[in-house]
C-alpha cells in the first residue's frame, strides 16, 4: 500500500472513530527533518526553473476576494486587472521568484473528493497562473494551509498534494495575498536629491523658483496679480537654502498613502491645482522634470489617507494619489515657508 493510501485509510478510520470528524489533521505531524526527506520522486516538479522567474511576463492571481493580473512592461510591471495602473514591481518580482521554489513533497489523496473541504475548488482556491509569453509555466490551485504544508491541486492531474511551505525552499503564501492596494505601486517619485537643479512651486500665493547653480541655490519670486495671473519674476535672496534641501528629502522617495479610485480629477482639484492646491516641479540634471499637481484635502475619502493629506497626480499619469500633509505642504507653501 502506498504511503498516501495508508494515510488516507488512517484518516478514514479515525474519522469513523471520532464521529465522522475528518482527522487528517489529527495524526501526528512529522517533524521538519522527516518532512524534508519524504519527497516522493513520482511527484511532478512544478517549480519554475532556476533563473526562469526573470522571464515570466504575466502573473494572474484569482481568489474569492480578488482577481488581479500583472503584466511585464519593460523593466517594470503593470497591473492590468481589475484596473490598469502601475504595479508594485518589488512585490510582483518577489512573488514570482518564490515560484522557483515550489516543491511538492506528498500526495495526500489521489482523487477530487477533498477539493471542496480543503478549498481547492475553483471558486475557493487561490489560482496562481504565471506565463512566459504565450506559455503557461505555472498553473496551481492553492487551498488551505495545513500541518503538511500548503495544500494544492494541479489543473491537469487529479489529486490533492502538499507543497513545502517551510524553510528556505518553500512556498511563501503570504507573498500572493493582499488586497488590491498592496499590489499597486505607491512610489510616486524616486530620485537622488543631488541630481536636482531646480524647483518651481506655483500656487494661489504666487510662484517661487529655485535654481541650483554651481552648488548654490538662487531664487525668484512671482506674486499674483489681482486677476489671478502671475506677475513678473523678481530675484529673491531672503530664503533659507536648507529648506529646499528638506523639500527634496521629502520628495526623493515620495509615496502615496492611498489611492483615489472613484474620485474624479475635478473632485480632487487636480486639473486646477494652481488654484486649489499647488503644483511643484522638480528639474533634474539632463532636463527631466518631475511634476506633481497637488489638489484638495483628501480627508474622509479613504481609509488610509492621513488627516489633512491631499490628492495629487503626476503629469502624464492617470493615477490619483492621496499623499501625506507634509509633502503636500511644500506645494501649497508661500515664500515665508522658505525663510
Amino acid at each position: 500500500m502506498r504511503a498516501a493510501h495508508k494515510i488516507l485509510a488512517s484518516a478514514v478510520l479515525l474519522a469513523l472513530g471520532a464521529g465522522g470528524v475528518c482527522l487528517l489533521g489529527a495524526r501526528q505531524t512529522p517533524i521538519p527533518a522527516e518532512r524534508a526527506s519524504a519527497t516522493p520522486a513520482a511527484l511532478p516538479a512544478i517549480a519554475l526553473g532556476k533563473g526562469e522567474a526573470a522571464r515570466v511576463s504575466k502573473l494572474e492571481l484569482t481568489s474569492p476576494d480578488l482577481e488581479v493580473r500583472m503584466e511585464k512592461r519593460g523593466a517594470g510591471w503593470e497591473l492590468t486587472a481589475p484596473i490598469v495602473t502601475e504595479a508594485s514591481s518589488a512585490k510582483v518580482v518577489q512573488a514570482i521568484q518564490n515560484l522557483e521554489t515550489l516543491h511538492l513533497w506528498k500526495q495526500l489523496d489521489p482523487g477530487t473528493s477533498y477539493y471542496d473541504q480543503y478549498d481547492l475548488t475553483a471558486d475557493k482556491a487561490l489560482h496562481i497562473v504565471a506565463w512566459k509569453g504565450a506559455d503557461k509555466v505555472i498553473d496551481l490551485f492553492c487551498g488551505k494551509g495545513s500541518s503538511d504544508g500548503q495544500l494544492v491541486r494541479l489543473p491537469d492531474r487529479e489529486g490533492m498534494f502538499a507543497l513545502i511551505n517551510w524553510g528556505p525552499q518553500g512556498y511563501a503564501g503570504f507573498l500572493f495575498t493582499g488586497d488590491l492596494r498592496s499590489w499597486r505601486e505607491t512610489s510616486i517619485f524616486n530620485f537622488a536629491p543631488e541630481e536636482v537643479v531646480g524647483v518651481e512651486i506655483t500656487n494661489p500665493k504666487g510662484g517661487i523658483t529655485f535654481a541650483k547653480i554651481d552648488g548654490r541655490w538662487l531664487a525668484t519670486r512671482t506674486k499674483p496679480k489681482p486677476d489671478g495671473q502671475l506677475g513678473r519674476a523678481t530675484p529673491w535672496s531672503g530664503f533659507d537654502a536648507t529648506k529646499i534641501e528638506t523639500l527634496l528629502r521629502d520628495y526623493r522617495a515620495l509615496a502615496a498613502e492611498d489611492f483615489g479610485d472613484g474620485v474624479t480629477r475635478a473632485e480632487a482639484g487636480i486639473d486646477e491645482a494652481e488654484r486649489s492646491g499647488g503644483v511643484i516641479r522638480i528639474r533634474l540634471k539632463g532636463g527631466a522634470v518631475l511634476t506633481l499637481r497637488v489638489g484638495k484635502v483628501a480627508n474622509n475619502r479613504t481609509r488610509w489617507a492621513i488627516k489633512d493629506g491631499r490628492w495629487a497626480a503626476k503629469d502624464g499619469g492617470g493615477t490619483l494619489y492621496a499623499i501625506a500633509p507634509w509633502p503636500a505642504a511644500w506645494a501649497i507653501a508661500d515664500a515665508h515657508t522658505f525663510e
Partner: protein
Amino acid sequence: MTTIRRTTRTTIASALLALLFPLAASAATTWYVAPTGSDTAAGTMAAPFATWGRAQTAAAAGDTVYFRAGRYLYTTATNTCGGSTTATVDAVVLSKSGTSGNMINYWAYPGETPVFDFSGITGSNYNCRHSSVRVEGSYLYLKGLEITGTLQLNTDNHESWGVYITGGNNNKFELINSHHNMGPGFFLQTGGNNTFLNCDSHENEDTMTSNGDGQSADGFGCHPNKAGNTGNIFHGCRAWWNSDDGWDFINATEACTVEYSWAWYGGYKPDAISGGNPVSLAAGNGNGFKGGGYGDPATNVPANPPIHVVQYNASFYNKANGVYANHGPVNVIFYNNTSYNNGVDFDMLGLIGTTDSSVGLLRNNLAFGKTLTSDFGNPGPIDDKFNSWDSSTGVTVSAADFQSVSFSPPASCPAAYSAGGTVCVLPTDTTSFAGMASARQADGSLPVLPFLHLAAGSDLIDKGTDVGLPFVGKAPDLGAFEYGATGGSPGTGGTTGTGGTPATGGTTGTGGTPATGGTTGAAGKGGTSGASGTGGAKGGTSGTGTGGASGGTSGTGGTTATGTGGSGTSGASGGSSGTGTGGSGVSETGGTSGTGTGGSSAGTGGNGAGGSSETGTGGSGTGGAAETDSSSGCSCQTGPAGGGNFAGFTLLSLLGLTALRSRKRAR
C-alpha cells in the same frame, strides 16, 4: 566668455551623463524624531521630526529612522470611529514597506529609550477600539521602542491592541517593550515571516471589555488568519503579569513558533499584590503558553490544523497552566520546556470534534511544583515520552535539581495598573521575580540567572532524547536550560556550520559549573550564507555561565548557516560551552562546544528572503543582518519634460551665470 563656455560645457556634460546613466536610487538616509521635534522640521539630528507618521512619510527603503529618548504622547489617531463603538482607530499605521535588501529601520537612538504613550487618545471621536501601532507594511525593522497606554474607552469590544500586525510580512520586531495596554501587547492577525526577537510584553489588561476583565490581554497573540501566513516566530521574549495568557495561538490558520521565551504571572491583575500574592482576575485565562485551539469546535477548526512549535521555554507561576494544549485538535510540538509551579504545569486537554481528547507531541519537558500534568489520559493522539514525569526517564525532580527555585513578587508596586502606567519591577531589580524581569544582556538576550537552571549532578541532565536539535552531552537535558559545560582547558571555538534541513532552532547553551576557569575560547569559524540573524545570548561569563543558543527561523534564503564559536572569558570560574546556533532556515551543527569556558553565541535566523550571507561571530555578537534578495525597487521617475512656465528658472539661470562670470572676472 570663456567662463560661460566652460560652464556650458560642464552643463552639457552633466546632461549627457544623466542621459547615459540611469538615475541612481536615493542613498539611504537617516532621519531623527524627538518628542521636542516638529513635523515641519527637516528630520535631521539638529531639527528632528515630532511623530512617527511624519518620519514614515519621509523614509524610503533602506532608510533608518532614529527615535530619540522621551515620551511621545499621542492624543489623536489617524482616523476616527465614525460613530461606531466597535470600529477601530489607529494611532500609527506603518503602511510603507522596505524591500528584502533594504528594510526601513525604526530604531531607538543608541542608548536611548523612546516611549510611545497612546493614553492621550480620548474623547468621543475615539470611542471604539484602538490600535496603537498597526503594521501593514513589509520589511520593516522596529527596534528598541517602548509601546504603552493603548486604551479601551467602552465595553463593547474584547480588547484594543498595542502592536497589531494586520498584513505585514518579513518584519522584524526586536527589543520592543509593550506594556500597560488595554489589550494584547502584540497581536499578529495577518502576515508571514514576522520575527519577534527579544521582545517584552507585560502588565497588559483589558479592563473595559465585553467578555470579562482580563480575558483578552495576552502578552503575545499569534493568530494568522490566512493560508500562507507561515514563518511567524517568537524568540527570546518575555511575557509577565498580563491579565490573560503569556502566549496564545488560538484560531491560527498557520503554525507559529515560540522558543527560548519565558512567561509568568498570567491571569493576574497587573501591579496588584495582596498579602504577598498576586491578585487573580476571574476572567483572565492565566496560561503561560497556549498552543493552539479554536474558538468554536463546530465551525472554526480547520480540517488539517497547523502544528505550532513550543520549545525551550520556561513557564512559571501562571494562574492556570504553564503549557496548555487549549482544546487543540492536533499534536502541537512541545519540546524541552520547563514548567514550574503553575496551576498545572502541562495540561494537554484536546478536543476532537466535541470529544475531550489528549493531544501534544511532548519530549524532554520538565515539570516541577504543584500539579505536574493534566488531561493526559483522554483518548487521542498524544505522544508523550522522555519527559520528567514519564517513568521511562527514571528521574525524580526536586528542588535540589535546580540552581535556584526561589521566586517571589515585589512587595508592592508604585502604582496600581493603569494604561500607560508605571512598570512595577524595574530592570535594575534582580530580586523580584528571581530577577527574570531584570535587564537583558548587552546584546538583548535574556539575562542569565540561576532560576530553574539545572544544578550540577542533577539527574535531569542528559535524560532527554534527541529531537533533531543541538544539545550538549550524551543526550539533551530535560527542560529549557541545557546543562553540560565542563570547565578547564581553554575553549576551542565552534566549527563551521553545515547546512541541512529546515531548522527549528538550536538548543540552549549549557550552563557551566562553577569550576576552574578557562581562557578565552576561540571564535568559531564562520560559515557562509544564511539569512539574517541576530546574535543570541552571550555566554561564558564567569561563575555560572550559561551559553545561550538559539534556533533559526525559517527563511527562504540562505544555505549553509554558520557555526559560532564560544568566546569564553577567562576568569576564576568556568563559563559554559557554547552550543550550536540556529541557522536561518537551515539546520546546522555549528558552534560546537568548546571544552573550556567558551561562552556561546547564538545567531538566530531572521526572516530572510533570498540568498544572503551571514557570518556568525564568536562571542556575543549579533549575527549579520545581511539579507539580499533581488527585487526591483521603484524605478527612477523621470517624468515628462516641460509643462511649466520656467521663465523664473531662465531668469535664475541668467542671474547665476552672470554672477559666475563676475566672480571669474574679479579673480
